[in-house]
């Protein structure tokens, strides 16, 4: 789950990270009032979970409250990267001396968190990593000890600070790590971290939370809904409500598999044969006839889909159950979309027999089935 800037900043603030004074608003009138409270001038920032907002024109500046109202009005309701701007953040302008980067991410290789810091802030850190990797300070956290004050000081020192500013920066590093751990963050980032006269301030904020950990953050349930609604397509949201693991793609061949790897491989194979998958739908392990039916119906109901490819490896999932689910879905929605099934494993013969009786194509290998389904929609 990706939090919006203002949500991330609220959480950062709770952990004691300095953030600029700001107001979140949904109208130009509120924007004007807020700018007034901030003393007239302000930054007006579109709240969307996308990178590169600045370049895309999502951050405007105003010198007076009326300018702020105008800026807010130009942003609100407009679209950026296909998403509608519904909220803007009205924030005090900072007198920035320098811009740093600070992030805590999951480090797969070291099986821990890694703190990344750079004196090159305000730009894409991946670019910095490619162009000037020596400008990135990395500290892999030992999970048994956590990030201690002396680690944070070392990081701040590596960025070239000493004395009071070093201590202030180290304090923020320590708190950002605390945010990462306590909020179960996949990524937490301050970019840029603004150096100002008497310290530092989080000028921007990113916080992506591990969906698997939401049971520890029940207060974020509502935020989660909102975040899903921004990130996912309508069909993806519907699939989520049905409990299906579904990703929308832009083709015309519906793809259903059991298991993430197998479903990915199915999509790859369809693509290799010149077909264009319309979706990725993983039924998961030990799917029941009911679940299979629900998945098949969901994909068939997609107007973009001209044919469906179901690829099931029977292990815990039984082939006869799969067949029954498919047949039931077809019975309920008697559309003229062809279905190609490839199944193998537990109760394979029984499943194939059921499908044949229902007039549904079955093939023995993934390759053959992929070829057939591509041919059915008119080939590559």
């Amino acid at each position: 789950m990706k939090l919006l800037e203002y949500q991330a900043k609220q959480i950062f603030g709770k952990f004691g990270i300095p953030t600029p004074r700001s107001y979140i608003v949904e109208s130009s009138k509120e924007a004007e009032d807020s700018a007034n409270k901030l003393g007239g001038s302000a930054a007006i920032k579109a709240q969307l979970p996308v990178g590169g907002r600045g370049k895309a024109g999502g951050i405007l500046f105003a010198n007076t409250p009326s300018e702020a109202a105008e800026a807010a009005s130009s942003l609100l309701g407009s679209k950026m990267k296909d998403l509608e701007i519904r909220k803007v953040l009205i924030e005090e302008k900072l007198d920035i001396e320098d811009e740093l980067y600070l992030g805590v991410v999951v480090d797969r290789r070291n099986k821990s968190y890694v703190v990344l810091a750079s004196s090159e802030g305000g730009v894409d850190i991946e670019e910095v990593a490619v162009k000037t990797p020596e400008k990135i300070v990395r500290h892999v956290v030992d999970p048994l000890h956590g990030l201690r004050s002396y680690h944070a000081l070392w990081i701040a020192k590596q960025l070239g600070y000493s004395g009071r500013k070093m201590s202030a920066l180290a304090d923020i590093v320590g708190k950002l790590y605390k945010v990462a751990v306590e909020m179960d963050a996949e990524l937490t980032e301050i970019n840029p971290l603004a150096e100002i006269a008497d310290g530092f301030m989080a000028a921007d904020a990113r916080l992506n939370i591990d969906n698997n950990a939401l049971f520890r953050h029940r207060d974020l349930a509502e935020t989660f809904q909102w975040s899903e609604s921004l990130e996912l397509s309508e069909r993806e949201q519907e699939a989520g409500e049905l409990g299906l693991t579904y990703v929308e793609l832009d083709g015309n061949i519906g793809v259903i598999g059991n298991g993430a790897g197998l479903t990915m491989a199915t999509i790859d194979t369809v693509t290799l044969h010149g077909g264009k998958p319309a979706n990725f739908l993983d039924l998961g392990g030990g799917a029941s006839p009911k679940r299979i039916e629900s998945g098949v119906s969901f994909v068939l109901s997609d107007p973009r889909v001209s044919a469906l490819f179901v690829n099931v490896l029977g292990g815990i999932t039984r082939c006869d159950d799969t067949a029954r689910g498919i047949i039931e879905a077809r019975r309920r929605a008697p559309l003229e979309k062809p279905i190609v099934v490839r199944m193998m494993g537990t109760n394979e013969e029984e499943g194939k027999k059921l499908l044949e009786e229902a007039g549904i194509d079955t093939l023995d290998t993934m390759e053959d089935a992929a070829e057939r389904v591509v041919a059915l929609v008119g080939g590559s």
Partner: protein
Amino acid sequence: MVKFINEDTQVLVQGITGIQGRFHTKLMLEYGTKIVAGVTPGRGEQEVDGIPVYDTIAEAQEKHALDASIIFVPAPYALDASLEAIEARLDPVAVITEGIPVRDSIDILARAGLGDTTIVGPNTPGLIKPGMSKLGIMPAQVFREGSVGIVSRSGTLFYEIAAQITRVGLGQSTCIGIGGDPIVGLDFIDVLQWFEENNETEIIALIGEIGGDAEERAAEFIGQGGLTKPVAAYIAGRAAVPGKRMGHAGAIIQGSAGTAQSKIEALEKAGVVVGERPGDVARILMRMT
């Protein structure tokens, strides 16, 4: 180094009274795995398929000499279940549970490292030595004794390829699912090292997918001579969309990192033959024998 179970290994099932736990306990018993006890907090003094259930491992250990564990408990309880297994010095511990928070996995693995416990997973199908025993949830019928070692991040794709290997007549020595999460215990390199030393394994199938750089690291290891046995590989997710999680928590292309292309190139550079389609793996292996 990876310890493996054999016909004498006494296995504990954590979360044995749940639907998954019950189901797979039965299947593992049928396959010959020596399951001697189960644990579900609050369900002590019951039985599942004739296996006694305890509230804690400490109690189970008063009655049984336990070696290895397989964990089916729901994600919110998997942290403590894993730590309990680690503290009880069980090894290996296969964590089947899907959906464990990354923070918990980090914690589990750090503590496992203190006592040198091998954690397989989380989000793994487990491991199987065909014809002898399995500590996992894979369908037994697709495996057959043989000389191919399989290591995979995925579950069903792993069974798919194993089935094809079996069909072409090769069979498998040992097969290990390392798990589809971003952070897993046992990784490709650990398993490849073990295959290198394992006399029963002659050739290897490596099944990877998008996300992270585990395959690139494995390629580096192979390229540096860490593995001398021939490897055939398949990488799922060539057609995946960047930024979208493809089912597995770990299967996501972030920015330009973790693409199938990057993994395939790295593996090929290290001398691994990478198949275009899953079915290619068995064909390539046949050529290698």
